[in-house]
């Protein structure tokens, strides 16, 4: 019983070309035992994805810290489901069925997820797609989970909203203003990223990775680059690692500033939004001045980074950090002392720590509910192995706690940029990607949380299969729990405090 994850999997067949963690191939009975074992073990689900005739699952042992990938063959189009023991796998299993046609035996939920009945083909990623019959049920026929009782009524919201935001449908069952159940229906932004990546050179696939979710361009590009480098068994030069971290922290600061302002704006406190908007704009302009793109698109490439920065540009970043720090401190004072803000945000949209743990939700959603996992510390990748910074942790799990996690992370990231510029090593900024087969897994901390990207390169060094798992996969379901018992009018601010990516999960 005391086995840790790696010891438990050790008897299985080891795949030698998978890096940096180990991949184990299990048969279906062994996989069933693994799923049973997961019911009692503290192994969090990092991802569940499919290949032509394999299902892969990444797990992390929360006690020992080890990460491993377990694989099971798909036999007659079926594999044993993981969702009965890991609710975070429910939507992933539905996606696998929609894209590949692999059925999960014993799955908790068998409704379609991405496939709204409007694609020309069903299971488009499988080698044998079938044409969608003309009378196939479309999104309108989707069966929402029932909630019955006296005085309940439904409020459908979206996918088209009154503002210019991403499309998502939310079905509220409410009793007057009080929400009894919320169910999200996503998939409107599906653009076939995984199939588009297949067969591309890593440099081209990286451009797609960058565009998975525009606000996480750096984080997704970094996760893809690290996975591709692991698959090809190369390491980028140290200077590239440090420059990547500067970009990642800059992206984190800019997004957190935007979120803090937007959360306050959702309760009509426009002052914070305007002031945070100014600070965010300064970050974006510094990014444009130093990296040539406001959102730093395509700056991270497999093998290194696309451009270097000189002493002047280091100066721009230093001035940015030193300019934002005092201005941000004043804004925190305003936030902390504005009673009408506290009245709206404290105690709103609470997520219990047990639930966060069950879904292994990362980022501010996890850290506002006592889950401290940060990919930069859990499995440190360079240069974070040489740096130290505090991980903020709050236990309230409400909107206010999620704002405070962001505030503390902005402060930590400002310090990190200073430390990164201090220690910036010299040397080349990129190495060439060799044409080598292999599989790689990367865990990278984006501003929303832990991104997991898995890449298989073929012998020509091209992408055979890539699965980027956005942190939002494990945060969206928690939003449905957070809003229960709250009032409908508080949903927008709860949603903004999660700020999950639509594009990132619709792929």
């Amino acid at each position, binding site marked *: 019983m005391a086995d840790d994850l790696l010891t438990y999997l050790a008897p299985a067949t080891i795949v030698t070309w998978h890096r940096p963690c180990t991949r184990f191939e299990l048969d279906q009975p062994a996989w069933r035992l693994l799923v049973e074992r997961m019911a009692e073990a503290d192994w969090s689900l990092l991802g569940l994805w499919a290949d032509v005739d394999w299902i892969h699952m990444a797990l992390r042992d929360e006690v020992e810290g080890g990460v491993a990938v377990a694989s099971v063959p798909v036999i007659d189009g079926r594999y044993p489901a993981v969702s009965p023991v890991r609710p975070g796998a429910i939507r992933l299993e539905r996606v696998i069925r929609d894209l590949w046609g692999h059925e999960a035996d014993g799955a908790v939920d068998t409704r379609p997820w991405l496939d709204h009945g409007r694609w020309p083909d069903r299971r488009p990623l499988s080698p044998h797609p079938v044409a969608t019959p003309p009378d196939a049920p479309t999104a309108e026929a989707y069966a929402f989970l029932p909630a019955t009782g006296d005085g309940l009524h439904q*409020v459908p919201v979206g996918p088209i909203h009154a503002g210019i935001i991403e499309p998502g449908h939310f079905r509220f069952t409410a009793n007057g203003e009080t929400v009894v159940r919320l169910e999200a229906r996503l998939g409107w932004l599906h653009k076939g990223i995984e199939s588009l990546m297949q067969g591309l050179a890593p440099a081209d696939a990286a451009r797609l990775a960058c565009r998975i979710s525009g606000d996480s361009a750096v984080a997704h590009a970094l996760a893809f680059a690290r996975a591709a480098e692991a698959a090809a068994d190369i390491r980028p030069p140290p200077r590239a690692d440090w420059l990547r971290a500067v970009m990642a922290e800059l992206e984190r600061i800019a997004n957190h500033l935007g979120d803090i302002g937007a959360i306050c704006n959702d309760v009509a*406190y426009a002052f914070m939004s305007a002031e945070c908007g*100014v600070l965010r704009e300064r970050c974006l302009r510094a990014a444009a001045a130093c990296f040539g793109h406001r959102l730093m698109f395509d700056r991270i490439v497999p093998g290194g980074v696309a451009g270097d920065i000189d002493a002047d540009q280091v100066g721009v970043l230093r001035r940015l950090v030193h300019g934002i720090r005092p201005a941000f401190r004043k804004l925190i004072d305003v936030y902390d002392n504005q009673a009408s803000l506290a009245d709206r945000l404290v105690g709103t949209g609470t997520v219990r720590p047990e639930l966060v743990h069950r879904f292994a939700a990362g980022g501010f959603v996890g850290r506002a509910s006592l889950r401290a996992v940060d990919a930069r510390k859990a499995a440190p990748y360079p240069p974070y192995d040489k740096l130290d910074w505090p991980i903020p942790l709050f236990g309230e799990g409400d909107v206010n706690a999620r704002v405070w996690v962001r505030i503390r992370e902005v402060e930590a990231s400002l310090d990190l940029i200073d430390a990164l510029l201090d220690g910036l090593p010299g040397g080349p900024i990129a190495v060439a990607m060799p044409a080598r087969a292999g599989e790689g897994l990367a865990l990278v901390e984006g501003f929303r949380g832990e991104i997991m990207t898995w890449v298989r390169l073929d012998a020509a060094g091209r992408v055979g299969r890539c699965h980027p798992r956005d942190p939002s996969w494990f945060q969206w379901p928690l939003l449905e729990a957070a809003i229960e018992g709250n*009032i409908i*009018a508080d949903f927008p601010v709860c949603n903004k405090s999660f700020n999950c990516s639509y594009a990132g999960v619709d792929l």
Partner: protein
Amino acid sequence: MTVIAQVVHLVLIVALAPAITGLVRWVKARALGRAGPAPWQPYRDLRRLMLKTPIVAETSGPLYTAVPYLQLAAIWLAAAMVPAFTYDLPLAQAGDLIVLAGILGLSRFLLALAGLDAGTAFGGIGSSRELMIGALAEPAMLLVVFTVAVLVHTTSLPAISAHFIAQPVGLRVSLGMALVAIVIVAVAENGRIPIDNPATHLELTMVHEAMVLDYSGRHLAAIELASMLKLVVWLSLIQALFVPFGMAGAALTALALPIFVAKLAAGAVALALFEVGIAKMRVFRYPEFLGGAVVLGMLATIYLYVSHGF
């Protein structure tokens, strides 16, 4: 002479209403450090809406298309009854404060019906919230009316203004309380922060905007103009009851008109600055906020019964 004044007044308030709303938006933007659209932007918006073809939901009835005009007419009539640069207006003498409250209630009722008419969820949410606000705000407004009525022995608006101009009653605790109460009611009636956020794009938090979410084109223009007029009604009402100085009587004075416009502008600036400094409150906090107005109005009335010195 008074008929000419009434016609001038009717035209003036409609012509001025978009500028007052534009001024609120412009001051808010400036206070937030943004450039903001010019104060006359609402005129352009109204023109744009007038030129667009309205789209009407298939599920809506004849009421739906009639309400924008009925509501505009009701608010316009209400506006005509409130003394502005002069209290000697024929329409102002036609009804008193209680009639005014009734007409404003009628416009609210019409809009709430229209919100329900198309059968969409947002219209229903907006109408239900709006009626909740109305149920709390209208008693508070009546109590303010009673306070003034006890003091001046009339509910006729021109008579109240004339009385306050002719025989200033000085600083009074009861009037101070009534002023706070009526400002709270005005904030709620006009859907301003902290009750409602007129600038929001979040359909689930809306009150007024949720009711009219399905409207477009000239229907929306009429509704928008009506809410701009409503702001002028309330600013006029507050100045007529509490700061009627400079208002002309039967004989018009040269300064009466500029003073009235300046008072409206001052009210708009004050509203903008108040909105910048506060977040919107939870829907379930409305009863506490508006209950405060009811209590203040009631206290003011009771004080006057206890002693005329208050």
